């Protein structure tokens, strides 16, 4: 009753132009769990009001020219060339491995075509020991941190040098503790709440506290999983320095982002969880760098989550198991590649600064291709991990009896057939040490 009366006398009720507008604070004390002002007008709001949407932060225009008033991140010739080389390495690698998959030499692959600026820009803005939890399309982060082409190939081929996962995972499921890159997990979005846990652990570790963050990548499709909501909510309420980077590339396999949400993208959800949020042009590498650097700074300063939505376009198919022309026009993809190519945009910027030219471009492309082909050919010739690795790492510590029993059974069979039965002998030759490790 009291609330109603007071609401009635609050004649100067503010109008909400957006969800986050400030209003009168005259009667705040009435509601125990909020500082919400009391108003008398019946006014609903939404993340999209009329045509008003969350803006997109950008530094370079489509032809690589800085926008008027835009503040460039600190950048010099050497740093710019490194960014560019990394951006170009991704499609070079992707083209080779995509075709290698088509030839049946690896089972699966996912390209990053169109999202090079988002991935390389984020990698460049993070510290090298920030913990990264990727979704699957973030190979560029590992490459930036010095993960070698041989290691990339080793993982994709699952050969004896695969120390991401000893040939136990599908291609592109990279992981490397030395590069602070958590192992990719196939179920979608599980990395989001885990990132909050990783950041919580960083906050609990004196040597990393106030120095390192957890950076978590995911697509706009993954943001529909419950894990997304749980993860953001926890990283804001049990505050932990987690930088959530949503790669909004327009498609969750075949589902267009227009069907993925009715609100204003992924960015509109950040304020709901009380975390600083920005939408950035994901095809503008300088904007990505600035946004991620600032996001990172806020993570550490507040000890809390920050959300970045990077707007991009997935030029490639979702994976080698997908043919995207079944649900989108080839012309649309070709147009996108021509009109808004993140690599071209940055090259134009570099050229205008006198940091790049046609000769450098030709030299780079040849060099990268040679490097990638060399790594590919080498990987093809390597053997698989030792046969004994079949039984390791299911459990840490003391090995349970059932695993010991499984190994014993195989050893028995190897002794019986390993040498005399040709199919077995041929198969054993594919393993490092020809399966001898089990016999000793």
């Amino acid at each position, binding site marked *: 009753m009291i609330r109603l009366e007071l609401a009635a006398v609050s004649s100067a009720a503010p109008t909400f132009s957006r969800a986050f507008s400030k209003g009168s604070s005259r009667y705040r004390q009435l509601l125990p769990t909020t500082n919400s002002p009391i108003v008398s007008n019946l006014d609903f709001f939404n993340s999209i009001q009329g045509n008003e949407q969350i803006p997109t932060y950008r530094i370079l225009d489509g032809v690589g020219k800085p926008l008027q008033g835009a503040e460039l991140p600190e950048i010099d010739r050497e740093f710019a060339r490194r960014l560019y080389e990394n951006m170009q390495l991704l499609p070079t690698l992707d083209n080779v491995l995509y075709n290698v998959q088509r030839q049946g030499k690896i089972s699966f692959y996912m390209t990053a075509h169109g999202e090079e600026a988002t991935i390389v820009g984020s990698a460049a803005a993070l510290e090298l020991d920030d*913990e990264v*939890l990727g979704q699957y399309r973030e190979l560029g982060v590992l490459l930036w941190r010095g993960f070698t082409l041989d290691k990339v190939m080793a993982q994709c081929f699952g050969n004896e040098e*695969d*120390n*991401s*996962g*000893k040939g*136990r*995972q599908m291609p592109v*499921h990279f*992981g*490397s*503790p030395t590069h602070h890159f*958590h*192992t990719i*997990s*196939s*179920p979608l979005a*599980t990395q*989001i*709440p*885990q*990132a*909050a*846990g*990783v*950041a*919580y*652990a*960083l906050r*609990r*570790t004196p040597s990393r506290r106030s120095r390192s963050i*957890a950076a978590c990548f995911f697509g706009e499709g993954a943001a529909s999983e*419950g*894990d997304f*909501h*749980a*993860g953001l*909510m*926890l990283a804001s*309420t*049990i505050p932990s320095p987690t930088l959530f980077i949503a790669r909004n590339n327009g498609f969750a396999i075949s589902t267009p982002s227009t069907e993925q949400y009715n609100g204003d993208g992924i960015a509109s959800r950040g304020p709901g969880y009380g975390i600083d949020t920005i939408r950035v042009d994901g095809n503008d590498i300088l904007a990505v760098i600035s946004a991620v650097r600032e996001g990172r700074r806020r993570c550490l300063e507040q000890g809390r989550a920050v959300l970045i939505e990077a707007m991009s376009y997935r030029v490639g198919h979702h994976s080698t198991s997908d043919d995207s022309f079944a649900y989108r026009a080839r012309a649309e993809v070709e147009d996108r590649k021509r009109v808004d190519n993140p690599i071209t945009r940055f090259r134009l910027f570099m050229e205008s600064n006198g940091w790049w030219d046609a000769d450098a471009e030709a030299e780079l492309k040849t060099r990268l291709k040679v490097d990638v082909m060399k790594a590919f050919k080498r990987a093809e010739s390597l053997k698989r991990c030792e046969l004994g690795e079949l039984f*390791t*790492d*299911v*459990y*840490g*510590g003391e090995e*349970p*009896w*059932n695993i010991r029993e499984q190994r014993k059974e195989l050893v028995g069979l190897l002794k019986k057939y390993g040498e005399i039965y040709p199919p077995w002998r041929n198969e054993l030759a594919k393993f490092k040490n020809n399966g001898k490790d089990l016999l000793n």
Partner: protein
Amino acid sequence: MVSRLALSRLAPVLNVARASSSAASRRVFRGARPYSTTDNDNTMTVRDALNVAMEEEMLRDETVFILGEEVARYNGAYKVTKGLMDKFGEKRVVDTPITEMGFAGIAVGAALQGLRPICEFMTFNFAMQAIDQIVNSAGKTYYMSGGNVPCPVVFRGPNGAASGVGAQHSQDYAAWYGSVPGLKVVSPWSAEDCKGLLKSAIRDPNPVVFLENEMLYGTSFPMSQEAMSDNFLVPIGKCKVEREGSDITFVGHSKMVSHCMEAAEALAKEGIKAEVINLRSIRPLDIDTIIKSVKKTNRLVIVEGGFPAFGVGSEICAQIVESEAFDYLDAPVERVTGADVPTPYATNLETLAFPDTPLIVKVAKRALYRTN
């Protein structure tokens, strides 16, 4: 077999004079364990044993912390974490918002980054919302990362039927988690089990699913001098012969061990010597101890509070008939389980849905080809 199972399920209806199962669960087990060699009077409730285990491990290891819904200021839904926030502060006893998927994910992430989280679920029925984090992330990451990233996390909370809480709060998940390579699963019974196994679970380099029982929280058990020590560990993957016998083997876990002990006591009055095996661990399963016992007694009755189909009992039965113990069996293996129905809410029906002592006695006699 089908008709035998059906008969087991219907049997209690015919048994008018059976003991109240809830009263049995509250019974103090002091003195009910003649094999105990201790000469002290220490007793402890299961709740306190769990609490002490966590406190000791948190004192020992800075990286151990607890998180879950209302575990800190409210002391836990069942008061298992009582006082821990006061002792260790809010950084190590963390209240989370209500999202199992979220705080299980945080726990897994923190474990992947080097901490040792204890993740409390208000009940394992709610952990269904987080099962992907438990099975696919915690259970498999060590293997999938080629041994790069261990995930030493403990998921704990009450499991199985409580009392009057309906089908969605009454399921036993031992068989579910027990089927996953990469997870360890324990289902303790006594206070000693709880203390020793929880401490082992916290120290284990693997993810451990720790299945408690709400009905046992308030039950007191004797504690040996050894169990009172802060270095008392019970090994995961080993069962315990709680009572030796030569005529029939009972295998049970969690609250069903109480019923097995009572049934053994009742049978003893008729001169039948039942051996009772407290399973303690679901995975790894200590089948050797069960095989040894069956070779001695020639008869096996497996008792569990879970559903009959694809259950812990089914697995033990299968492993026994696949082993040399098969040749020693003088009667078919019997499973006494929860009824194959969504757990009823009505008290009378709920009581009939789970094994109790008279039912175990009855089935044991059937296995012994005794009629009465």
